[in-house]
């Protein structure tokens, strides 16, 4: 369509810049306003504390009718995130609602780092480790 970016995306971007969330930074790509460079810092008290994780977030043409596509660019040892950085998070899949937004998605990902869900794994080996030997898993997470 000839008309540019939907107002919703413009507003969301503005709000992300004006009122950033602690530990989350999302900057749109210079050449593609639907593509965001995201940096999430590991939440306090989690094995990922002080870790800095790069992610990419892409808003598909159907957004907000379909969920943004988010992927970890930094390798992370987490039961719900696989080697390619793909994230297993319900709101990115069937629990997506168009009333959610970039901000809420990134907050959920941050929360996922604090509270992994080994019962719904994407990386089976990591989930196994989490379930059988959490301490070791947490150690590995720190690396």
């Amino acid at each position, binding site marked *: *369509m000839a008309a540019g970016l939907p107002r919703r995306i413009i507003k969301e971007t503005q709000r992300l810049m004006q009122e950033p969330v602690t530990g989350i930074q999302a900057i749109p790509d210079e050449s593609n306003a639907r593509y965001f460079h995201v940096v999430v810092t590991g939440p306090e008290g989690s094995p990922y504390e002080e870790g800095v994780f790069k992610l990419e977030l892409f808003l598909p043409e*159907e957004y907000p009718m379909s969920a943004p596509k988010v992927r970890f660019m930094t390798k992370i040892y987490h039961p719900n995130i696989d080697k390619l950085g793909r994230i297993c998070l319900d709101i990115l899949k069937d629990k997506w609602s168009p009333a959610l937004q970039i901000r809420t998605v990134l907050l959920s990902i941050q929360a996922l780092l604090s509270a992994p869900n080994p019962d719904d794994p994407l990386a089976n080996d990591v989930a196994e480790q989490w379930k059988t030997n959490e301490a070791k898993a947490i150690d590995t997470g720190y690396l």
Partner: protein
Amino acid sequence: MVDLAKQAFSSKNFDLAAEIYERSIREYGPKPEFLLGLADCFAKLGQFERAFTAYSKACRVGPMNPKDLKHLVSSLVNTVKQDPLINSEMNKNVVFDCLICRNMLYDPVTIPCGHTFCRQCLVKDASKQCKNCGTKYLYLNISRIKSSVLLSQTIDKWFPEHSKAVEIKKMANDAFQTCRFEEAIRLYTGAMELVPNDHLLWSNRSFALSRLDRNEEALEDADMILQLRPDWPKGYFRRGCALYNLGQYEESVVALLQCLALDSSIETAKDYLSKALHNIILPLSPDNPKATELQRELNPSLLDQLIRTNFDCTVLLPKVTVDTVKRLKDIITDTVNSATNFLEGKDHHQPSQPNLPQGTRKALLKDPSLVCREDFECSLCYRLLHLPVSTPCGHVFCRPCLDKCLDHKTECPLCKSCLAEYLAERRQSVTIAIENIIEAYFPEDCIERMSQHEEEIQELASMGLDSEHDIPIFVCTLAYPYVSCPLHIFEPRYRLMVRQCMESGRRQFGMCVANGDEESQFSEYGCMLEIRDVQFFPDGRSLVDCVGGKRFKVIGKGQRDGYNTAKVEFISDHPVADMEEVRGTSERLYLVCRKWWEELPQVQRAQILQHLGEFPGPETESSYGPNGSAWHWWMLAVLPLDSRIQLAIIAMTSYKERLRALERVLGFLKNKHDSR
């Protein structure tokens, strides 16, 4: 005789009934039954003077009950009754008001027609009908509609004193219920300090005062209600009651009739009306100073005196007696006009007078900085709400935004409650209150948002009109000119596409066939489909009846809202050069095809008929126009051809060539058939 009169009365032949009663009175004397019957006839005939005389006579010859005046009451009510006051024009002024209690909304519930009322008012209202637009609701379960989140929040935020007053009012009402009237009055008075123009407080206090026989004060409060809301029928009722209690029956009758003129369904008002009329009609006791005075003045015969006492003189004020029904009419007309003017906002007092009403509540807003545009943004598109619709779970979205969500999932995007029922009702009603708030408080943004919407529609409407505007593409199957193409639409993006086609009024889109696994890969050629009819299923799917239109070549591809679009060049045939030859081939082939069709087994024919319709008629002159004949496209649609061949044929710009291709296909099929 009496039976005959009653029969005539019940078959509405009042003249005849009156005649019979009059004859009976002459023959058998003035029995109460006859007099009452006669009076009822006069009342029904609108001859109120004669009716009053007859009633008062009846009253003198026997006991009379206020209930005996029911025909008089109903006739009077019919005389003054007005058409429903509220019309769509007045909707514009409804901002935060409930149209039942005419007060600021409390616990607001938006019903499917888009009008909003206090929950309690809706529960109490037994009419099963929207008081605003008249929509009938036989099965509306109010407990299943949640309160409007946006309206509740806005009222709490903008008018905080209102919610405080509501709390106090609740306590006051409790006190009233338990007959602690003094306490109730004190609480109502306290609440009035917070919201001096809440007429319900004045009304309740008036009622409480009357229970304590403080009727003068009750009347003062009632008159205050009428100043605040001259459009509220119950205000006149309160005045009528207070006057009744003060023994001013004539004035009371007038006030009660004013009430009934605005809402003829208030039964308690009718009860009071008959009681008041009864008191008027009852003969004055001899020790009544008025009676004595009259007697002294005129010294008439006893009967004459009583009649005079009751009717001809000063006691019954000209407001109620007969030739005064006309004057009564003027009073009623005034009442209705002032109510109408009030609702239309013409007659509003200046906001500088704090104790007087302000029509729109805008002036009441103490702190204008509380008005925040963001509160009225759609949580889906982040723009100012446009065509706001309310879900049963109490959330508000732009209608097009919610429709898009429902294409994907039948649940509320905010609270995830199921909206299957909402979707099945296909309700389209805009929530008037919210639309009015937006228009009143954000007029500039509202105009801008409206023009945005119009631009969007315009954008959709111009698709395919010029090279700038892409046409939407449905990637599914091949369509042919003139051939019908029924489609079952279930994919969210195509639901949206069909809706947009319909809303914009273009009612057409391009049909292409898939050409690879990628979504954006579709054939280079296609055919326009025009929508003839859409039938919706309760779950949002639809059956779309289309017919093929112009053919096109895709010259550029794009996407919009998740579906494919294309820039196209329309194709049409070159003019036929060797007309005779083409006509010959065409007529010959038509007969071949017709024969083939007629020889097809019944089952196959039925299937084809269902999808593509009847075998088209033979050539006409238009068959040599831009697309050739209808029948050859129909044959091409029926024949089991590879899509590459079909596309090649669609691309041909010569009717003659397509006929040749068809002939080759038919020959090939015949050979295949013969060799079996």
